[in-house]
């Protein structure tokens, strides 16, 4: 495990630099939007990564409630934190692109709203974890994660009722994407996934050590108390 970390770090570094080159220089310029379109190579992979992390968070939360496995809880915490970071990237890059192309910073469209609501839910999840005082934080957080997951389809349907303005999904949405662009997109996604993995790994180890220290301190004070 320990040896894998520098390898993953190197791979991530190389992939990110290559993806940067591909996105900014190698990818063809979009006909109507021009260079602004290149933000797409960061926006879309961030979104996919964030959604994947939130999905892992949900699975880990359910696992924690069933098995009460500490590792599942740490995984849930880690993926939620890193997921919020990537989701923030999506919410920041989106308007930067939308302003020159749509002429507006924001619109209450299906995907935009869904992403924003997801972000809000997961920020409230992290706040609960921060503010919770009892030793039962993992249970409460896992319950909230399940509520959040239940909320997503309802948000989806409530906003689906309005017409949607967002360009339809590029992969599996019937849209056509230049194969070279798709290629760059996938390289970027691979790079972002590696980065997310690296971040989660670091955070996971950190949290593991932190809990070990807390346990040791608790045990120590217990020993001192009985003396």
């Amino acid at each position, binding site marked *: 495990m320990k040896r894998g970390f520098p390898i993953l770090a190197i791979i991530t570094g190389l992939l990110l630099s290559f993806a940067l080159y591909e996105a900014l220089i190698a990818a063809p310029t979009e006909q109507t939007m021009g260079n602004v379109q290149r933000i797409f190579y960061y926006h879309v992979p961030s979104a996919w990564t964030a959604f994947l992390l939130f999905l892992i968070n949900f699975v880990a939360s359910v696992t924690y*409630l069933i098995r009460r496995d500490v590792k599942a809880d740490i995984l849930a915490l880690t993926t939620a934190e890193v997921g919020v970071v990537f989701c923030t990237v999506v919410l920041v890059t989106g308007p930067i692109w939308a302003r020159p192309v749509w002429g507006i910073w924001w619109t209450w469209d299906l995907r935009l709203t869904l992403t924003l*609501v997801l972000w*809000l*839910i997961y*920020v*409230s999840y992290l*706040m*609960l974890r921060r*503010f*919770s*005082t*009892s030793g*039962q934080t993992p*249970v*409460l957080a896992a*319950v*909230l994660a*399940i*509520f*959040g997951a*239940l*909320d997503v389809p*309802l*948000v989806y*349907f*409530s*906003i689906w*009722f309005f017409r949607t303005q967002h360009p339809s999904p590029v992969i599996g949405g019937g849209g056509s994407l230049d194969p070279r662009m798709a290629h760059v997109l996938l390289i970027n996604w691979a790079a972002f996934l590696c980065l997310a993995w690296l971040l989660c790994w670091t955070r996971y180890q950190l949290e593991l050590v932190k809990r070990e220290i807390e346990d040791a301190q608790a045990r120590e004070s217990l020993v001192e108390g009985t003396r």
Partner: protein
Amino acid sequence: MSFLAITRATLAKDVRLEWRSKDAINSMLFFALLVVVIFSFSFDPTAEESRRIAGGLIWVAFLFAAVVALNQTWARELRNQVLDAYRVSPAPANPLFLAKAFGNFIFVGVLEAVMTPLFIAFYKLRALGPAWELAPIAALGTWALVVNGTFFAAMSLRTRSREIMLPLLLFPLSIPALLGMVNATTAVLTGEESARFWIALLVAYDVVFTIACLLLFETVLEAE
């Protein structure tokens, strides 16, 4: 004691306590009144405009006011360790939750019954659509607020600064419900479109989260 008996006993106790102290209802009423007056000052709408915005205003006012009542739901049980006593008793958790949720439903319902005429007077409202639909919308919307509100109030008991924690947990999850209530109310008031879809959405929201709350409440209650 049976499920129903526990629910009834807890509900009766809460309603009696509220009837004698009127803590929650008074603070809610005054708070909602302030919101209505402030909104009315800051927008000063014509009858046509107010039809479009009243649905949003009325529900935002109720949402904020409901938080006042929801925050007090469990605080009362913390004094004298009532909640701990309940936890060690053999009574199941769900009747307690249902009683609390029904109690809040009644309190927020009273609030709505008092505030709605005021709203109508201040905003010169007259529904152009089928006005009877407002009754199921109000009932479903209120239940959507209180069922999750009661649940999250129990959850935020175990946090620092719990009074502020409740809205932070409740509001993000309530977005689809709020959209449903606001759009259904606006649809009825303007009479331009049918409120059916939004009512169906509220029904789905209520069903999903009532089941989720009942399944997970025991986990939250025992978490200590």
